[in-house]
């Protein structure tokens, strides 16, 4: 017979203000196997914890029930208390009489009292059947793999590598740098975005502990925290980067013109190209889809002219694996494709209606216009520029319900840049709210207003052409009047959304995405860079829209978590995982496909039955590194052979009996 102690917590007035805690303790004293039952103001406090330890010793308790708050909050605390008292830490059971009772039944005290008592009775029933559990350890591979080489991935890579761990950085584009390096200036300080990001890119390339794969994507992830194996496909670049010196002859002579992705379609690049002059690596790739040789079988100009003989049309994709202990998702964002749904703004039929990212390229000295703001339609300087905010953001009917966070500030920056670069220009910003939470942000917005940007509160209903005019039809809700602007250039602040393929990345990494496709943090406030999958971390805009300061801060946060993990020689595993009773297992393997963590596998065993020759058969086995203890296998097992430790059938049925009988 166990010797169980019950401790009822008041949690100040949170619990004690609703129910009669001494009464609960008194009644619990009569429950089976309970030899000690008391109440206390704050059990999580230092004196409270000491009281439990003392009671364990005095009354020789070997099971403990704590009736207090959610186990999410303090289960760990009380396990440590048991350890200090010399008990196995898994012999504590909590009854959540706060979140599950007094917080929600504050108005019906009598029923709350009855419910709290029932919850304690349940906890005692389970506690009496608890078994000691023991953690085991697994080794840690002291390397980290980062998916995505934008500023988030770059910052994480540099921080982890500087801490002395090897980093594998995987980027699907031909260069790292992501969105940030395409931007002209950053708000609110107006420093040059490329100037502050290219040194970091170069640092990545030069770092002895960073292995960089561009044109590469992850294809498969196996393993678990501390011990992942990642399959990477590095696409053929058709240029041998070992031989290539980056001299530029090939792209100068290539006859094919292709709209430049880096310039958001506003400029041209060649079919063999580097995306921009400071690309890392600074070696070209061939865009097979547009290459004349690949499409017609003739040309080979680049191969003929390459002094290093680096062009290799026969190059194939490489597939290889990397072993790492931690993974970081830093897949970033893309802009919402407005031209698919915004018919009222012309569905992209007017060349002079562009996105904010296109504007960044127009205003950038290294961009297609050399930094002059010119209309895409005719190359003239626009006199009147209209900015429209929240295109696809805060728009449930066409786009996303959320606020994209960065548009208010970059639009203010764009507006100022127009005033600076086009003397005498008129600039209008249509907005619903101006959101400027950030250091120096509000001041920056006020500066735009003071320098003459006309802010008009209201959404734009239509952008249309009438003869030579491009008309923006909006409203000034503060005046209560519809308004109209004859615009030369219209810039849309389109919504930030997860990068293309983010869903697939989430699936490969075994992490969740929210309803908008952003990766889900383990806790939105307290665990913002972790995920529910051990060893997988988040950096940057892949988890929600972020500006550069927040992205970099989060990237360093993720790096700290990675370094923390990699600094350990071994990890202790959660013992509350599935176990298979091999004798009962019939080998139906229904459990294998239901496991979301791929933790169940087929295993061969040799059975020795008295009077029979040894027999080989297949049963289910649990990989303790992968199992998260969710219990899906337990539910599906017809033979009752799989159980989760700490949640065995016997324990759960005892709880049900205690509640219902």
């Amino acid at each position, binding site marked *: 017979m166990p010797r169980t102690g019950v401790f009822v917590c008041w949690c100040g007035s949170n619990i004690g203000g609703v129910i009669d805690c001494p009464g609960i303790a008194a009644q619990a004293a009569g429950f089976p196997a309970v030899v000690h039952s008391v109440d206390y103001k704050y059990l999580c406090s230092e004196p409270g914890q000491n009281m439990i330890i003392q009671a364990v010793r005095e009354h020789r308790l070997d099971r403990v029930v704590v009736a207090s708050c959610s186990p999410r909050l303090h289960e760990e605390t009380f396990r440590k208390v048991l350890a200090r008292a010399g008990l196995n830490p898994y012999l504590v059971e909590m009854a959540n009489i706060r979140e599950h009772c007094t917080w929600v039944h504050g108005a019906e005290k009598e029923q709350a009292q009855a419910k709290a008592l029932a919850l304690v009775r349940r906890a005692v029933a389970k506690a009496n059947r608890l078994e000691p559990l023991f953690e085991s350890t697994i080794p840690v591979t002291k390397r980290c793999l980062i998916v995505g080489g934008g500023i988030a991935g770059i910052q994480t890579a540099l921080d982890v590598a500087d801490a002395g761990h090897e980093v594998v950085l995987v980027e699907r584009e031909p260069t790292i740098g992501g969105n940030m390096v395409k931007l002209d200036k950053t708000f609110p300080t107006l420093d040059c975005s490329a100037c502050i990001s290219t040194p970091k890119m170069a640092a990545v390339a030069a770092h002895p502990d960073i292995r960089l794969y561009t044109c590469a994507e992850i294809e498969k992830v196996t393993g678990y925290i501390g011990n992942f194996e990642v399959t990477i496909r590095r696409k053929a670049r058709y240029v041998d980067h070992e031989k290539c010196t980056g001299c530029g002859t090939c792209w100068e002579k290539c006859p094919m013109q292709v709209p430049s992705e880096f310039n958001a379609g506003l400029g041209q690049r060649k079919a063999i190209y580097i995306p921009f002059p400071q690309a890392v690596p600074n070696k070209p790739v061939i865009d097979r889809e547009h290459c004349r040789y690949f499409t017609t079988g003739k040309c080979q100009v680049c191969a003929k002219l390459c002094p290093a003989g680096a062009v290799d049309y026969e190059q194939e994709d490489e597939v290889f694996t990397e072993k790492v202990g931690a993974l970081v998702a830093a897949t970033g964002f893309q802009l919402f494709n407005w031209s698919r749904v915004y*018919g*009222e703004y*012309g*569905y992209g*039929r007017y060349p002079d209606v562009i996105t904010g990212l296109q504007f960044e390229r127009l205003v950038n000295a290294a961009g297609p216009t050399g930094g002059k703001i010119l209309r895409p339609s005719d190359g003239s300087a626009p006199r009147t520029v209209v900015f429209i905010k929240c295109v696809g953001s805060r728009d449930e009917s066409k786009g996303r319900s959320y606020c994209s966070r960065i548009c208010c500030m970059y639009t203010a920056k764009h507006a100022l840049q127009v005033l600076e670069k086009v003397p005498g220009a008129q600039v209008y910003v249509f907005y619903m709210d101006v959101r400027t939470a950030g250091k120096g942000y509000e001041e920056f917005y006020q500066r735009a207003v003071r320098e003459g940007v006309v802010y008009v509160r209201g959404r734009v209903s*239509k952008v*249309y*052409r*009438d*003869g030579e005019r491009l008309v923006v039809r909006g409203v000034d809700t503060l005046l209560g009047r519809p308004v109209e602007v004859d615009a030369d250039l219209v810039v849309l602040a389109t919504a930030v959304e997860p990068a293309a393929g983010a869903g697939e990345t989430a699936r490969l990494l075994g992490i969740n995405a929210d309803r908008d496709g952003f990766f889900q943090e383990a806790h939105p406030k307290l665990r913002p860079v972790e995920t529910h999958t051990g060893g997988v971390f988040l950096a940057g805009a892949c988890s929600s829209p972020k500006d550069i300061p927040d992205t970099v801060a989060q990237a360093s946060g993720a790096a700290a978590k990675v370094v923390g993990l990699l600094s350990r020689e071994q990890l202790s595993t959660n013992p509350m995982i599935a176990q298979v009773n091999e004798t009962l297992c019939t080998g139906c393997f229904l459990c294998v496909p239901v496991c979301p963590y791929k933790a169940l596998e087929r295993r061969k065993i040799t059975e020795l039955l008295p009077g029979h020759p040894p027999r080989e058969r297949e049963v289910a086995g649990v990989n303790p590194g992968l199992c998260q203890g969710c219990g899906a296998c337990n539910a599906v097992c017809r033979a009752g052979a799989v159980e989760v430790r700490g949640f065995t059938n016997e324990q759960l049925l005892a709880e049900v009996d205690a509640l219902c009988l």
Partner: protein
Amino acid sequence: MRYSYYSGCSLHATAREFDLSTRAVCRRLGIELAEIPDWNCCGATAAHSTSHLLGVALAARNLALAGEQGLDVLVPCAACYQRLAVARKEMDQNSELWKRVVRITGRDYTDRVGIKSLLEVLAGLDSEQLAAQVVRPLEGLKVACYYGCLLVRPPAVTGFDDPEHPRTMDRLVRLAGAESVDWDYKTECCGAAQGVSNEPVALKLARDILEVASRAGADCLVCACPLCQSNLDARQGHVNRAYGTSLKLPVMYFTQLLGLAFGFDERELGLDTLFVDPRPVIRALG
């Protein structure tokens, strides 16, 4: 192909030529029209502005009658089309409303018939089938296709074409050999609903549409709604008087244009009964 035909009140009077040209074009394309026996007025704007239930109930009687025919309903008039489509959608989605309407009309509406606008049906035909009928391509004619409100809005009800930049009528116009001009007032409201009670409003909206179409280079305008047609055509004189303009932009039904390309006679299509005579523009094509 056979449809229940709901012509609506206007097509029996001021929009006679829409009826004429619809029947002519459908006959040529092998589309059989079986007029709904004893149909009643859909109630138009007046009914739903007065009582939501009245708007649905008046439309529902027609749906019940069409149900007896067992055919999908084809509606040329954009306004009638939208009223019938709204009624059908609302009753389908709200069984409480459906029960009330059955009580009110005394007619069970259980055979859920489809509601299709004439434009939707014709635009859904095979290009080759349509092109085969074109004996007189209207080459050189620049046409502004005007869809108005009710064919494309609200998209949750209508849905067969884009509410901001519809293209079905443009496609038919091009199949007829004419050129459809790209313009951005295709779905702006013409204000016809205000024509009688508040004419200045209607005139302003009509003027804007006619002027934008002219500036886009159109020789004429085609539409699919009797209210739009009479507002833009018959009231064009009033527009000129009110604004001192000298607009002279013929406004035809798209079926008249198709009929011309199919080789019908101007009179068979009622082209002689419009206010702004389209015949000079047509004849100038040679």
